[in-house]
């Protein structure tokens, strides 16, 4: 049951809206025009360029779960042969140490933590080998291990100025269905970009 008060309130509101209708319409039009202008000019400018420091190799990075010493890079070319097409890869030498104070667990280095920064486009993920084995589990408490990070690049890749972006790991709870509320190692922030000059090698086809 509507009371008289409500009816009077509604009437007053109606009047107020009518009295300021033109102002409302102008405000609405301004918002729409602003949105169109921003849309036409391609939105707000996205931040570009490296957000982390760039340093020269050899450089040692503390990525919390691991410690990486990034040493040198080379570009290995495999020329075209009768049965195989030409290939090239960037090989970066690293030594790695498991510094996982939280869980003391053996773990492999993820290729997503060691990215090759290429001129334009997405950085490339590494395929990492330690002691010449893929997916080698670094043991906590044992000395540094020699590793390589390999990136498959186009056969005509010539950029000898190699830049490796290192991404850290963070021990935190993500509260998901898989891990529950307990903290786990997750990919953290970008730490540093290590730059070096690569040597070029040509490998004979077997």
């Amino acid at each position: 049951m509507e009371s008289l008060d409500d009816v009077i309130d509604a009437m007053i509101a109606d009047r107020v809206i009518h009295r300021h209708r033109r102002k409302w319409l102008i405000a609405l039009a301004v918002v729409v025009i602003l949105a169109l202008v921003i849309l036409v000019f391609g939105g707000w400018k996205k931040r570009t360029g490296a957000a982390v420091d760039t340093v020269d190799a050899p450089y040692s990075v503390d990525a919390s779960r691991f410690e990486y010493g990034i040493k040198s890079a080379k570009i290995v070319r495999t020329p075209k042969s009768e049965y195989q097409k030409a290939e090239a890869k960037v090989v970066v030498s690293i030594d790695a140490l498991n510094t996982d104070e939280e869980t003391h667990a053996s773990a492999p280095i993820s290729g997503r933590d060691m990215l090759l920064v290429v001129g334009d486009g997405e950085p490339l993920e590494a395929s990492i080998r330690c002691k010449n084995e893929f997916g080698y589990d670094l043991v906590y408490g044992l000395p540094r291990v020699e590793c390589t990070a390999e990136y498959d690049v186009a056969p005509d890749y010539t950029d000898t100025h190699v830049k490796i972006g290192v991404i850290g790991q963070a021990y935190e709870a993500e509260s998901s269905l898989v891990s529950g509320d307990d903290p786990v190692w997750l990919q953290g922030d970008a730490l540093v970009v290590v730059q070096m000059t690569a040597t070029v090698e040509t490998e004979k086809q077997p």
Partner: protein
Amino acid sequence: MKIYRPTTVIVGVVFVLLGGILRLADPAEVLDDSSRQLVRGSIGAPLTGKDFTLTVTRVKFAQKVLQSESDDPDEVLTTEGVFVAVEFEVAGRHLPETIGDLSLETDGGATYEPFSSPSATSATAPAPGFTESQAAVFEVNPADLAGLTLRVTPMQFISYFTTNYAIDLGIPSEDVAADLVAKASTATGQEYLVPRPQLRVTS
């Protein structure tokens, strides 16, 4: 109608507190992980699961691991620490299945993962009536070995309650471990040849 009467508010607060108390009473003390059951066993003693019987038959420490009988130096695994090889047998009693992923745990809190190429990374149960012997090789830190335990962790599906297995490998203290590590560095016990998985009829 008044919604926020003092009684209503107090009842709400009491429910929130009750929830907190129930969360504190979570049976974390009883179970290793409240969503999984933990079954303990020890080396040499058969551990009976739903569809299989698992027995750890031998634990061997070594400095080098040979992946096959060839003398190719590229196929020898070496370490700055020490290798632990765990040999086990699984007798099947029902459908062949994967029991779970293997790992080692110590009292010090370390977790070690097995090598994938020459060794088993998971325990599998063969068909009923058969027993399969398998071996898993782990690279470990010789300073953290007390209370070495083999863990078998099944993949958890949301639909059912899984069982974890923890098998004590009989290394109660660091002194015992140090002895075994020292023995592994003497000439005779230095190398370990990973045995091939063998399937035989359960006797």
